[in-house]
């Protein structure tokens, strides 16, 4: 094991950085034969915001789970204010003032926010405890500038509000060490900024904050220090002001992955024409209103926009899961396909990559090869009366190789055991093996690391260069700017502006914000 130490610089002695609160030394954690943490060392100072940066599967979450008592390290030392301690259970961590906000929130949806806080931190008689926690939650949220409907059932809160409830849970327990696991994975840019502002004020009041992320920008903008992990080791701990993004990216992946735009060479005739689409949801709210755009063969049409402006509904309509109330979708050669069912759209050559892999992309409990072969089985490619499993498996094995899906250890492995990037590659392998003419991709790189993202992008570009029409819907403006041949901005259910590339990032940003 080598730890490169090229960028290590001494910390400036600012007044709120006192001693080391928590220090992990030589932590080892294995799962069976797999070494998740290999002699990892990490320290956290009083009053700092510390970013833990790395690719998927680098060991970031595992390390933090060791701190919060969900995992017990195989070996290594944990020092709390220079005193060796054992963290054997979440309770021990709680008593030390460690609070963690997990990537997937642990909330009871029918309960109100306050009841969820009570569930975690309640002591003594119910009513008294509820009142006490209410007062405290109000006080804390005012101090750090949060707004949360404490008396609203959590199921009715937005994702970012749910996250605030999780954070309040931690803060009302008087946590001094706050760990956030991928806190911005589901937040928009402005929500993320608010979150980090709140974290800064927490740090200023004497807490120490660790946030786990794979986004360079966040780490560089908001952290006091950055610790980079790769393959279960800590590569380095650096100061953001001495870093530049390329060097940091190198530290993360061990090699440089910088994508550059690859514009389309041949844009031909319009392939899909969406005209004045409108749809209301069950409450009568117009989620899609008067939406029109065209996409041509050999073109990637990027749809930028803040999440929740009708993107999900648009994808559902384009994939046949929902029907629009009015409007038409003309598909070259097939006429109006607005009323087509998912299977018909599939047969017309439409492929859809949904943003939520776990619920729409794969059946996690079924095998990798089944998840691939289902498409062929549906089309009757592997026999009509009896499914020829051997042929299906061989086809899956070939596709797994062609699309570079890694981490498939055996033919019978469940799809749920694949990492996010490989799961997405499996979805793409299944959908793109049919050489689709239309591709609808909704946030295809959400939660993926740099390398996996660039692989996904390669596949989208390949689909385009085969003459496909690609619709890329993403909340990540960088991704839209990088990939698109034309950009539409979506707001309140319609395309409110279109830009030819190269487009001005600020103008797009203004269009997104002005109507958001």
């Amino acid at each position, binding site marked *: 094991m080598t730890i490169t130490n090229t960028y290590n610089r001494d910390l400036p002695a600012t007044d709120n950085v006192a001693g080391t609160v928590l220090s992990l030394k030589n932590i080892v954690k294995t799962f069976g034969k797999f070494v998740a943490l290999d002699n990892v060392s990490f320290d956290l100072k009083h009053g700092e915001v510390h970013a833990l940066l790395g690719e998927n599967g680098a060991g970031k979450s595992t390390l933090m789970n060791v701190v919060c008592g969900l995992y017990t390290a195989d070996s290594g030392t944990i020092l709390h204010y220079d005193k060796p301690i054992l963290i054997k259970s979440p309770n021990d961590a709680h008593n030390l003032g460690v609070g963690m906000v997990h990537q997937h929130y642990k909330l009871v949806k029918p309960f109100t926010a306050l009841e969820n806080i009570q569930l975690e931190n309640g002591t003594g008689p119910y009513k008294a405890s509820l009142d006490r926690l209410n007062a405290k939650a109000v006080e804390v949220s005012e101090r750090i500038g949060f707004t949360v409907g404490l008396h609203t059932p959590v199921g009715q809160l937005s994702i970012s509000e749910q996250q605030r409830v999780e954070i309040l849970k931690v803060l009302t327990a008087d946590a001094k060490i706050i760990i956030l696991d991928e806190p911005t994975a589901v937040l928009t840019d402005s929500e993320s900024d608010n979150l980090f502002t709140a974290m800064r004020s927490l740090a200023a009041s004497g807490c120490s904050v660790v946030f786990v992320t794979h986004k360079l920008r966040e780490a560089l903008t908001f952290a006091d220090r950055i610790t980079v992990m790769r393959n279960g080791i800590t590569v380095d701990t650096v100061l953001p002001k001495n870093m530049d993004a390329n060097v940091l990216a190198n530290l993360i992946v061990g090699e440089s992955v910088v994508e550059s735009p690859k514009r389309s060479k041949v844009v031909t005739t319009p392939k899909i024409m969406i005209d004045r689409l409108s749809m209301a949801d069950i409450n009568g709210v117009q989620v899609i209103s008067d939406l029109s755009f065209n996409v041509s063969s050999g073109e990637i049409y990027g749809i930028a926009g803040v999440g929740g402006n009708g993107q999900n509904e648009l994808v559902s309509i384009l994939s046949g*899961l929902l029907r629009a109330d009015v409007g038409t979708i003309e598909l070259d050669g097939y006429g109006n396909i607005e009323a087509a069912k998912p299977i018909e759209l599939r047969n017309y050559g439409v492929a859809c990559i*949904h943003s939520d892999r776990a*619920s*729409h992309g*794969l059946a*996690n*409990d*079924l095998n990798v090869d*089944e998840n691939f072969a289902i498409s062929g089985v549906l089309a009757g490619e592997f026999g009509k009366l009896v499914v020829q499993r051997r042929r299906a498996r061989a086809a899956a094995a070939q596709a797994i190789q062609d699309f570079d899906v890694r981490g498939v250890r055996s033919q019978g492995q469940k799809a749920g055991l694949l990492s996010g990037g490989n799961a997405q590659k499996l979805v793409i392998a299944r959908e793109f093996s049919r050489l689709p003419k239309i591709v609808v991709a909704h946030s295809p790189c959400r939660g993926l690391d740099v390398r996996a993202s660039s692989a996904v992008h390669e596949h989208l570009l390949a689909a385009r260069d085969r003459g496909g029409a690609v619709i890329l819907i993403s909340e990540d403006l960088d991704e839209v700017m990088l990939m698109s041949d034309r950009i539409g901005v979506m707001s309140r259910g319609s395309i409110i502006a279109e830009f030819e590339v190269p487009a001005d990032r600020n103008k797009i940003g203004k269009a997104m914000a002005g109507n958001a």
Partner: protein
Amino acid sequence: MSKRNQALVICGGLGIGLLVSAVTLMFVGISAPDLLNEFIFSIFTSSRSINAVLALAAPLTIVGLSAAIGFKARFWNIGIEGQVIFGAIGATLIATYDVGPEQFRIYLMASMAMLFGMAWMILPLFLSVKLRVNEIISTLLLNYVAFNFLLHLLYGPWKDPETFFPNSKIYEKSERLNNVMGLEINVSVVIALVFVVLMTWLLSLSRFGYILKFVYANSNMAKSIGINVVLMVSIAALISGALSGLAGFTISAGIDSRLTQGFFIGYGFLGILIGFLARNNPILVVIFALMMAILMVAGQSLQVFYQIPFAMIQLIQAIIVICVAASEFFIQHRINIIK
């Protein structure tokens, strides 16, 4: 965990269940040799016992298959008894009114039983698919409706015209399931085995079964990829109803030779039990149906000769289920002992 080890773990659970059951029975005063005699020797040495076990195992297999295909589509059919009742009513309808030529009557009875069982499924299926009424509740409650309709028929129009007892008049010879020619095995056993083969094909080999797996594992994903989830669930539920109806026919035509008031009792619970123990695998359904049939037949003689209450038999069923269900834990989890 490999398939073989999984099987070993389940067999282990089953073994422990049988052991605990044996100890329990010894506590109520049956000696070990007697137990062995009742459960093994007298069952397998007397052709009459074997016949009784097989005649019981046939409808149990069919209701087990019925439960299994429902479960495979996440359609929890708790209404097996209702469908068994309606299946038998359909068969008796043909028998009572002498519909069709005599040599085809038995086939007509079987088809009508399946049709009636299927028909009894339509309402809960519609409610579940269109209005999202939980099928557990609707199928369960329809059991009581079916039972009361059965009583209405048996105390009313179908009362035995000779004895005036509340059961249908006895089926004629051509309307019964007799023994297979030259063997002391009821035809219902053959019917059950035919459907085991059919269901093995349908669930494990066919495209339908392959696609159904996705409906079970992730219905959202199934919809997205173009599977008609509602259609798949409907087909599975209707087959489940038809199989239960068929089981009703094999009980009334194979065992009782008439429609009685209580012929269906226990089949719903046992069907679900067998489907669960067999983990929805048609081949394993046969094995567990046989086991349950042996338990029931041996239990009857225990009742008669040792004055053991029927509750003891149910207790043993429950012990076996708990042990097998608990063994599932060891399949899902690996245990490391940390010193």
